[in-house]
């Protein structure tokens, strides 16, 4: 039989596990951020000592996590009503909001400081800008106000290759700006695919995601439109001579795959209101493919620049 002890039940409720603190850092989002930052660092001309390169990547990861923690602090009210996010540590009551905010601020400041010490001021300023953009521009300003939230806010996730490049060179050149633009254009179709099947969640939370405001049909058209813009842009590094045929071939093949996925989303069987009759299967497939697309595209660039 369970026996009472002297500690309070309230203390148990506030005792978050190590996993809860790690969950605040949105580790799945971090993976893509770290990878694109690493590629920015690898393809940059010049050399950075491996120890400093590791420090730079850790800073990018921690900064992304810090921005995620502050985002979770600010969005705790809407996270609580969304099925996808209601089990996060703050809405579930395992971490106090103020603790999460403090955690995020300390990590954000620490990551920028260490980046400046390990590499240079340009990389540190870009890192600070990426955190500020995600927290102030996307989370606090755009997310709850406009269906274009993810279009503009997507810039926050596009910073890592710029930061990686700047960590090595101390500046910004055309190639990292192209990589920034690629992620910037990749983000809307990626998130709108998710929003197509999570629109009920967003509607409940009052988030004006495109499918909630403009409907599923308009969202499917926008997914294809942005993919049509993304594919030629992804070929520019090769067309401008910044990358070779390995990257060019990969960008063309992956682009065709993404276009096909976006086309299938557009042609999904749907009722008169545009609601999917397939459980949004094409949108789910396109969402998964978009992640593979970005990983492989950046991996191809790294291989091309390092071994091509």
């Amino acid at each position, binding site marked *: 039989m369970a026996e009472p002890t002297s*500690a*309070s*039940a309230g203390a148990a409720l506030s005792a978050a596990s190590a996993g809860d603190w790690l969950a605040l850092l949105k580790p799945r989002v971090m993976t893509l951020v770290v990878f694109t930052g690493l590629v920015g660092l690898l393809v940059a001309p010049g050399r950075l000592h491996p120890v400093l390169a590791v420090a730079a990547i850790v800073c990018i990861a921690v900064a992304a996590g810090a921005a995620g923690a502050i985002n979770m602090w600010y969005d705790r009210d809407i996270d609580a009503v969304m099925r996808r996010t209601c089990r996060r540590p703050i809405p579930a009551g395992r971490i106090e909001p103020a603790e999460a905010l403090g955690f995020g601020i300390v990590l954000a400041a620490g990551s920028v400081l260490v980046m400046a010490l390990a590499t240079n001021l340009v990389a540190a300023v870009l890192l600070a800008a990426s955190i500020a953009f995600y927290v102030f521009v996307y989370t606090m300003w755009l997310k709850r106000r406009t269906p274009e939230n993810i279009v503009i806010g997507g810039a926050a996730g596009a910073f890592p290759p710029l930061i990686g490049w700047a960590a090595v060179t101390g500046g910004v050149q055309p190639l990292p700006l192209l990589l920034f633009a690629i992620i910037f254009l990749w983000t809307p179709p990626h998130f709108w695919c998710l929003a197509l099947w999570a629109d009920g969640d967003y509607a409940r939370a009052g988030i004006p995601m495109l499918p909630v405001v403009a409907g599923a049909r308009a969202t499917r058209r926008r997914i294809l439109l942005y993919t049509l813009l993304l594919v030629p842009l992804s070929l520019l590094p090769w067309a401008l001579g910044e990358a070779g045929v390995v990257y060019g071939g990969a960008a063309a093949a992956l682009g065709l795959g993404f276009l096909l996925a976006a086309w299938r989303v557009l042609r999904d069987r749907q009722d008169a209101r545009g609601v999917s009759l397939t459980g949004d299967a094409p949108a789910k497939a396109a969402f998964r493919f978009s992640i593979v697309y970005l990983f492989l595209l950046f991996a191809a660039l790294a291989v091309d620049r390092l071994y091509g």
Partner: protein
Amino acid sequence: MQPPPPLTREQSEDLRRRRRGRNLLLFSALLALALLFYAMSMVKLRGG
């Protein structure tokens, strides 16, 4: 104000386990940071 109800043995064990996990995480993070700063200092001192 009513005092909070006492914890059961299972809750108490769970609380201890979670505290231990957090402490280990904090220790690992601090150790990693110390090592990172040491390595960075060495590289900078050698002009890396």
